């Protein structure tokens, strides 16, 4: 088996607020192998974004630990990119779209930065928006800028929080395939939160189903759809339909007949 990239052990986080503490996640545990694409699904408000933030080292978890390549995460790990759920706020309004995408690429020569940004923007279908400011774009376009920025960075670990929520179905399909291609070509490890059950099955090597808040892992569903997937044939396949029903059932709390992998 490929080496473990990410290991989450007994993770718990409690937000402090004036009304008292609030447990967002509790006793979460799972591992992600290098190069794997794991999709996370779970009810709204269960703690998915919190999980992503702890993995990214942006919040220090109250309990448990996250380790990358065996070393515990303390602070933000290297070679990481995040596509935030709140994409519009994560773009810098004082930079043009092009500069937003170039922003994390420090260290590279200017020309290369520009080339990478242009490439990433073209990949998400925004080749002509480079000189605009984020607020001059539609919601879906802004979300794609955030995706382009993460892709241009070429991270080893990519965390995505509902990255396709604001784009139309057609664009979504294209972006999904883009993600699969990037993963194949660059061997990126990806943890992706989604609300779209079909998407989780279509994209994932594994689907992680979380419980209601405080989130813990309800089930981990391996997805054996092979490496090469295709929007029409894969989605029409029997395994796909079956897996999808399984995920939906798990989400609704319907107990599964066959035991699921822990």
């Amino acid at each position: 088996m490929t080496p473990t990239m990410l290991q989450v052990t007994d993770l718990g986080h409690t937000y402090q607020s004036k009304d008292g503490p609030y447990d967002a996640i509790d006793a979460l545990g799972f591992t992600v192998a290098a190069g794997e694409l794991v999709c996370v699904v779970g009810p709204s408000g269960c703690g998915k974004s919190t999980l992503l933030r702890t993995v990214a080292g942006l919040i220090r978890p109250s309990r448990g630990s996250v380790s990358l390549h065996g070393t515990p995460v303390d602070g933000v790990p290297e070679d990481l990119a995040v596509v935030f759920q709140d994409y519009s706020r994560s773009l810098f309004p004082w930079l043009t779209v092009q500069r937003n995408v170039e922003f994390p690429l420090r260290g590279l020569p200017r020309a290369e930065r520009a080339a990478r940004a242009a490439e990433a923007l073209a990949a998400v279908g925004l080749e002509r928006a480079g000189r605009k400011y984020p607020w001059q774009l539609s919601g879906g376009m802004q979300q794609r800028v955030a995706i382009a920025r993460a892709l241009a960075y070429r991270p080893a670990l990519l965390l995505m929080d509902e990255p396709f929520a604001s784009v139309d179905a057609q664009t979504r399909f294209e972006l999904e395939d883009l993600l699969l291609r990037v993963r194949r070509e660059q061997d990126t490890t990806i943890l992706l939160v989604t609300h779209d059950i079909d998407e989780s099955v279509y994209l994932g090597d594994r689907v992680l189903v979380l419980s209601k808040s405080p989130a813990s892992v309800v089930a981990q569903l391996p997805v054996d759809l092979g490496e090469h997937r295709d929007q029409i044939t894969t989605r029409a396949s029997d395994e796909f339909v079956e897996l999808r029903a399984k995920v939906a059932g798990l989400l609704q709390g319907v107990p599964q007949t066959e035991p699921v992998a822990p």
Partner: protein
Amino acid sequence: MNLLKGTAQRWVVFVVAVALWELVTRAADDVFFPPPTTIAEAAGQIWFSPLFGEHVVPGVGRMLLGWALSGVIGVALGILLGRSRTAMAYLGPTFNFMRSIPPPLLVPFFAATIGVTSMQLPTIVFGAVWPVLLNTVDGARAVDDTKVDTARAFRLSGPQWLLGVVLPSALPKVFAGLRLSLSISLILMVVSELVGSINGIGNQLVQAQRDYDLPTMWAWIVLLGVLGYLFNTLLLLAELRALAWQPRHSPEAQSLATGG
């Protein structure tokens, strides 16, 4: 056409105010409040005489230098205090204490430590730095959470984080501070020229005041207004460039703001 309208809008209130002032002062006929036409006459005499070079240029040079220094210091310290809780905890109270000491009371302090004749610049900097500092602290603190997270996730270098994220998001507030500092610099330029100075607008203004040469005194006051207006206009131009990215400059936002 639009330009004409804009100019008219900009000056109508000013012109009306001056005209009213003329009428009121003419009616009141008080030596202490000469009408604008009399002031203009006195202004013409002093502004276009060697007095201008002798008294205006050195002071204004000091004022611009002092203002620039307070801008740089204010922004640098403001970002430090705005982003570092520790720095704020240790330095905040001391700064708030120093900020609250009325500058005229500091004159003996500066006179003793720096010297009566060379304390003009420090006086300006010490008084003008606070609006920039406080506003920058505000701006630096208010960097949107998601942007903070974004910057951290991409592991931005320190300078990139400070210059590329914190500074731009604080910039609108910094400009508010700079505009306040600008007029405070001018005011402190005058105040600091009252003591230990052999030239300067403040020196001349008070001299005219003591000589009961009121038109001349008013002419110096008006000159301060003119200088303030001029520098402010230049600053606004810079601001317009630096903040061009703000959505408020779009026609949609404008019409929304004016209810159109």
